């Protein structure tokens, strides 16, 4: 290391900062600089690939962790109290002892943090030391570690290896210059994706002298742009040439890439931890904590009335202790001190342990939710996942559900079912039968219409046709709506229904006739239809490989199930898609002839155009042909006349998903001119997307064509689930991109729409309805409708609808989506992702992920109800418990001159909160079961009733109850022992015991179902109290001066009065509960009635539920 002046170092650091912040980065190869000083490395400003996700270092753990923890207000409060206790004039306990609770809490949290951080450290180390191949001066790839990878290196990845950094693909072993990757680690999608080598880049590492200009790192997984500038000609590259860190290379022997981002990779930038949401209950809880603070202050002010008492004294009594100089504090100063002493004494009124207990309860609740076998999906072998850990109870508070259609209500698994070509419908009846016999849920229909006259005129016209170079821009098609999904299993879209299509006899005849008459040369509409189906897609054909085996050695991996379905349909008619490379598509015709179409460009799907096109050159006719496929309305606007509209409407009414396929022949001249624009757009850094889209739109004009319709079947039990949710008082809205007819049909199918009180609104109207001046009225109208159906809405509109309803009506909203509607999911209070067929982005952004829509029923009606009532009751109980216990100390202040004396040993007070009464409420919060799952599912109306467990009044009622109980627990022993020779701790012992029994029995009454666990914990707590207290009072002779509990409980337990006092105090304290009982008997709440039903045997219960619900 040579010496460098600090100034130079600083200058370098500044330069580095600037280089990192620039919008565009210039990267060069590291090779020429290998072995040189760090200061001479051109890419030294960019971070290396070593990752560090740990929060702490070994040395700084304690200060940093404490700093973190003190961000919690409660912790500061308790540390403040502990410090206050070190001030002699105000302390209530021995200073050291007062530190115990906060120390316990802080160290427990610190231990948890340390453990988590250690695990992160371990996984970091493992990742950083993963081997990889980097090209070195020795002119070969050397084995290095991931952490050694730097920007500007050449990295080689082999099959099944994970990509160590974001690589610009320069070379692959594949003859077609593609590299297949699997992005399961990033977005959970398991289908293969193709990445293509950047065209125009030199591969030879030694001779790589160009500069790669790329944009600043960002977290968009589907977007990247860069260009190389070795000379004048810019060669642009996008996401289609980028291998992302974390992806796995598949089906490609090896690939070489240039590192553009190390450390700041897209996957790392996407990794921003779990989101923190605060539940409604928690917000209420915080308000109540503030009430507790007010209560505490009020009680402390009462304590400060001390001075009145002091002033009333005629002289200086012997029990007042002067300070060392022999002076007594004046009454007002003394009151001031008393105020603080009282705060210390009554501090547990602010329940520090409540927060810890709530966390514990939520962990337990999540354990039970994720372990529910009813929420487990066998098909995908996936459990329910809770991604947000702290809003379980909000599941019990839902008032509005916003649901997407495709992949949420429906299977999103498609089979070719029907088609209509040349105005003739081919119903494929055999297919229907197959579907019914096999797997009735998933069916699909494809309708193909071809306009007869278009054969001559419409097919081949028009100017702006040009064929660009290929770029498979597949990521664009991730957009939801028409082009859907991805399989969850490792075999994408391969259900028997998709693959087994039984051809319609009539159509087969048509094809064979067309073939025999025209051969492969003539553009017969029937042949064209199936060619279009086989070609116009982005389906990847993969051969059987070891880890992705299939009986049949052709396998289609599609990003959307309808694409796969269409390809399989074509296959069934003999048009077999054999291979797809970026440059060509090979299709085998029914005659057995293989046609290799040259792919000139693929205009990928995007949500604005809602269609995709493939431009190919016919091998025989040499014509440039553009096949376009898209949503019917997206295609129809490009066709002159709304032809085949009748069939489309017909299918839409049956709930079919309709797609249109078009063909257009592009002249060479048009293609050439278009190509120039296209290339310019591809190489652009700014507005690349828009430019590319514009070029796509340019080409997709004056189409002439054919139409198809697809049906996506409902998932199982969807109608039942929606019915139940509506009976539970939840408003269900369906927001879909489908056309109104389809949407309404689905609405009827899933029993969302039954009566007339329905609102169907389409996207354009919705835009107006959501405008500020109409919002109020729209919301008002929507509120009155039993169901609302929004069709043809864009993802952005969906999230706006959710936001508007949520804000205007102040209701709890839940959004369900099975695809990529991240916006909507994040706009709602709770976002639920269905990890079904389409992309996993919704699941990634969701708070809870389920695999079937029907799981929503149990998740909300049972788990939501339970989680909410459990937690609400637990929190109320916790407040009650603390107030009831602390008030004993408060009442005693009236009899000890407000001096802050505690009549219970401080250690026992700590034990009381820490051991004797902590486990039961947590268990209660995790395990109590007010009504059985069967009944909650059977009577969905209970969901609504369960929502009011925690209201403003319940808090105050429980506080009043706590006041009453503490009065009883204090004054009955007080009256029983007054004027006697009882000493302080002997007096405190029955108080402590009585409140233990009262608090635990109170909980016992609250517990609705006693399992073994309940018995063990409740009896264990009582046993623990006696064992620990007896042991403590036997061992501690002078261990805790000045308080001294030696032999107190022992002597008390030898006295019959002790038991008599405890008995009557407990009974009187719990007596008001009987009013509760009387109320429950005279006018039972639905929940209580349900609990009665729970006690009946199942058949009798069925009967009752039926009768009850018929009211």
């Amino acid at each position, binding site marked *: 290391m040579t010496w460098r002046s600090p100034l130079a170092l600083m200058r370098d650091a500044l330069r580095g900062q600037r280089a990192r912040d620039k919008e565009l980065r210039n990267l060069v190869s590291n090779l020429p600089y290998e072995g040189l000083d760090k200061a001479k490395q051109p890419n030294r400003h960019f971070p290396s690939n070593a990752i560090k996700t740990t929060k702490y270092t070994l040395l700084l753990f304690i200060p940093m962790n404490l700093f973190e923890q003190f961000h919690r207000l409660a912790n500061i409060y308790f540390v403040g109290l502990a410090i206050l206790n070190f001030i002699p004039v105000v302390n209530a306990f021995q200073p050291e002892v007062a530190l115990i609770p906060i120390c316990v809490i802080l160290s427990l949290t610190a231990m948890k943090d340390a453990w988590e951080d250690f695990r992160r450290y371990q996984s970091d180390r493992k990742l950083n030391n993963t081997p990889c191949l980097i090209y070195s001066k020795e002119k070969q790839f050397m084995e290095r570690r991931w952490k050694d990878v730097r920007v500007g290196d050449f990295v080689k990845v082999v099959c099944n290896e994970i990509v160590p950094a974001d690589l610009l693909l320069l070379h692959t072993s594949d003859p077609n210059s593609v590299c297949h990757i699997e992005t399961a680690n990033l977005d959970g999608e398991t289908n293969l994706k193709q990445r293509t080598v950047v065209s125009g880049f030199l591969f030879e590492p030694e001779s790589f002298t160009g500069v790669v200009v790329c944009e600043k790192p960002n977290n968009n997984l589907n977007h990247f742009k860069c260009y190389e500038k070795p000379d004048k000609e810019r060669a642009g590259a996008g996401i289609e040439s980028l291998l992302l860190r974390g992806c796995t290379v598949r089906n490609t022997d090896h690939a070489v890439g240039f590192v553009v981002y190390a450390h700041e990779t897209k996957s790392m930038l996407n990794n921003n931890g779990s989101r923190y949401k605060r539940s409604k209950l928690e917000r209420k809880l915080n308000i109540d904590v503030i009430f507790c603070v007010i209560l505490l202050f009020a009680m402390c002010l009462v304590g400060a009335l001390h001075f009145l008492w002091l002033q009333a004294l005629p002289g200086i009594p012997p029990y007042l202790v002067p300070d060392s100089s022999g002076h007594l504090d004046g009454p007002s100063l003394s009151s001031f001190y008393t105020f603080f002493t009282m705060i210390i004494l009554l501090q547990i009124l602010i329940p520090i342990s409540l927060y810890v207990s709530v966390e514990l309860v939520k962990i337990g609740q999540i354990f039970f939710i994720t*372990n529910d076998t009813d929420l487990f999906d066998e098909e995908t*072998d996936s459990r329910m996942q809770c991604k947000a850990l702290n809003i379980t109870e909000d599941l019990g508070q839902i008032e509005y559900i916003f649901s997407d259609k495709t992949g949420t209500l429906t299977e999103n698994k498609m089979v070719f079912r029907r088609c209509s070509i040349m105005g003739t419908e081919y119903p494929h009846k055999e297919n229907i039968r197959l579907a019914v016999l096999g797997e009735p849920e998933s069916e699909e229909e494809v309708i193909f219409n071809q306009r007869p006259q278009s054969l001559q005129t419409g097919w081949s016209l028009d100017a702006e046709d040009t064929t660009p170079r290929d770029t498979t821009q597949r990521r664009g098609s991730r957009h939801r709506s028409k082009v859907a999904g991805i399989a969850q299993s490792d075999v994408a879209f391969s259900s028997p229904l998709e693959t087994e299509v039984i051809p319609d006899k009539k159509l087969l005849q048509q094809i064979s006739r067309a073939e025999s008459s025209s051969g492969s040369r003539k553009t017969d509409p029937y042949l064209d239809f199936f060619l279009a189906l086989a070609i116009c897609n982005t389906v990847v054909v993969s051969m059987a490989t070891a880890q992705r085996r299939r009986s049949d050695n052709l396998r289609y991996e599609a990003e959307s199930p309808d694409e796969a379905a269409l390809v399989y349909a074509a296959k069934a008619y003999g048009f077999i898609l054999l291979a797809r490379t970026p440059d060509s598509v090979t299709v085998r015709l029914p005659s057995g002839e293989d046609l290799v179409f040259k792919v000139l460009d693929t205009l990928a799907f995007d949500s604005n155009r809602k269609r995709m096109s493939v431009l190919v050159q016919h091998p025989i006719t040499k014509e440039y042909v553009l096949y376009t496929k898209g949503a019917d309305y997206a295609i129809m606007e490009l066709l002159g006349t709304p032809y085949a509209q009748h069939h489309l409407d017909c299918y839409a009414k049956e709930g079919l998903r309709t797609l249109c396929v078009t063909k257009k022949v592009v002249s060479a001249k048009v293609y050439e001119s278009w190509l120039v624009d296209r290339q310019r757009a591809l190489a652009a850094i700014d507005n690349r997307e828009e430019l590319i889209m514009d070029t796509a739109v340019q080409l997709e004009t004056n189409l002439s064509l054919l139409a198809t319709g697809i049906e996506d079947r409902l998932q199982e039990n969807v109608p039942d689930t929606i019915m139940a949710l509506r009976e539970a008082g939840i408003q269900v809205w369906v927001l879909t991109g489908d056309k109104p007819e389809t949407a309404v049909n689905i609405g009827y199918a899933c029993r969302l729409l039954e009566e007339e009180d329905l609102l169907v609104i389409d996207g354009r109207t919705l835009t107006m309805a959501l405008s500020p001046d109409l919002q109020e009225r729209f919301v008002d109208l929507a509120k009155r409708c039993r169901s609302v159906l929004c069709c043809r809405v864009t993802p952005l509109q969906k999230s706006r609808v959710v936001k508007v309803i949520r804000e205007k009506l102040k209701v709890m909203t839940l959004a369900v989506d099975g695809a990529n509607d991240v916006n909507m999911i994040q706009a709602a209070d709770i976002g639920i992702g269905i990890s079904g067929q389409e992309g996993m982005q919704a699941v990634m952004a969701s708070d809870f992920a389920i695999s079937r829509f029907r799981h929503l029923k149990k998740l909300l009606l049972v788990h939501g109800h339970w989680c909410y009532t459990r937690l609400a009751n637990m929190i109320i109980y916790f407040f009650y418990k603390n107030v009831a216990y602390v008030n004993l100390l408060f009442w005693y202040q009236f009899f000890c001159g407000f001096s802050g004396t505690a009549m219970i040993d401080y250690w026992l007070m700590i034990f009381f909160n820490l051991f004797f009464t902590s486990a039961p409420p947590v268990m209660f919060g995790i395990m109590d079961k007010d009504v059985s799952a069967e009944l909650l599912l059977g009577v969905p109306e209970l969901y609504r009733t369960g929502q009011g467990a925690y209201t403003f009044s319940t808090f105050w009622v429980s506080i009043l109850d706590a006041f009453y109980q503490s009065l009883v627990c204090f004054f009955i022993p007080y009256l029983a022992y007054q004027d006697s020779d009882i000493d302080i701790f002997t007096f405190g012992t029955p108080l402590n015991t009585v409140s233990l029994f009262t608090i635990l029995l109170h909980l016992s*009454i609250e517990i609705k179902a006693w399992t073994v666990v309940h018995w063990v914990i409740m009896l264990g707590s009582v046993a623990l109290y006696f064992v620990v207290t007896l042991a403590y009072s036997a061992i501690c002779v002078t261990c805790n001066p000045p308080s001294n509990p030696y032999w107190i409980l022992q002597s008390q337990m030898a006295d019959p009065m002790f038991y008599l006092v405890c008995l009557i105090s407990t009974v009187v304290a719990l007596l008001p509960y009987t009013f509760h009982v009387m109320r429950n008997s005279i006018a039972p709440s639905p929940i209580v009635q349900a609990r009665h039903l729970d006690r009946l045997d199942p058949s009798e219960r069925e009967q009752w539920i039926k009768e009850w619900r018929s009211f």
Partner: protein
Amino acid sequence: MVKQEQELDNRPDNTAFTQQRLPAWQPMLSAGIVIPGFVLIGLAFIGIGVALFVTSRSIQVLEIDYTGVAQDSPCYRCSDPDTKNCVCTMDFSIDTLFKGPVFFYYGLTNYFQNYRRYGASKDASQLSGDLEYFKNPSSDCSPYQYDNDKPIVPCGSIANSMFNDTFKLYQIVNGARKQVPLDGKGIAWWTDYNVKYRNPSVTPLRNAFNGTVKPVFWSRPAYELDPTDPANNGFINQDFLVWMRRAALPNFRKLYRRITEGDYAEGLPAGNYSLEIAYNYPVLSFDGEKKVVFSNVSWMGGKNEFLGIAYLVIGSLCIVMSIVMLIVYAKFKFPEED
């Protein structure tokens, strides 16, 4: 299909616990349980109440206030704080035999022995006989830690404020005074006497106190608290132990002596008595009262009518409530039962 079955690694355990199907007892507090329950509780409570009440009524208590605030009180003279070594005599008579063993208490009112800083003002190590703390008492004792730079033993406010009135009881038999023997043994807690408080193992005891001074308020040093019994001195003096066990409430009594010996083993016979009080303890500074209490005890301790009445009241209340509930029950017919 077969392949799928094997692959279900994520399937949750299907146990009663994880599926929340543990067999559970679901108690319902319905009227059918509550009414008989109330009747039972009511009856049991009335039974206990009667027993307590009867027992409490059988306990005889005699309280004599000797504060001397009233001018006609024999101790009026002594209540003046300036009067030293004042002795006053209270006469009283007993109509029937006061059954023995009779417990003889002194009582104070408005005296906050439970005051926090007062309670902390002692040195437990010193009181357990640790000589180290004889020289250096704990600072908890401040300002009763040192007196003119000499350590105070026993230090602290509690010891300093020890009650120092003494009593002698005479029965007037034919105009002559016959002293009633008072038993001062075993009036403190056994654990205090044997475990918590220890004299240093130095003989004679007074040597241990060399270099220390007595508490400011005391007239005699700790090793001379009981001139009649050398074993009853130092920290294990019974009166000292009784005082050191701080009362829970501001109005309290503390055991002074028991009357268990001689002619009085059966109790105090009817007749006239005279109580001679060495009046030392000032109580006017806190509006306190001083009294002497004679009481016999039962299994339930001293006289306390509250508990018996409370049991009776709650017991009856339960019965009444069960009747009310029964009426309500009959009138409303519970929905779940029809």
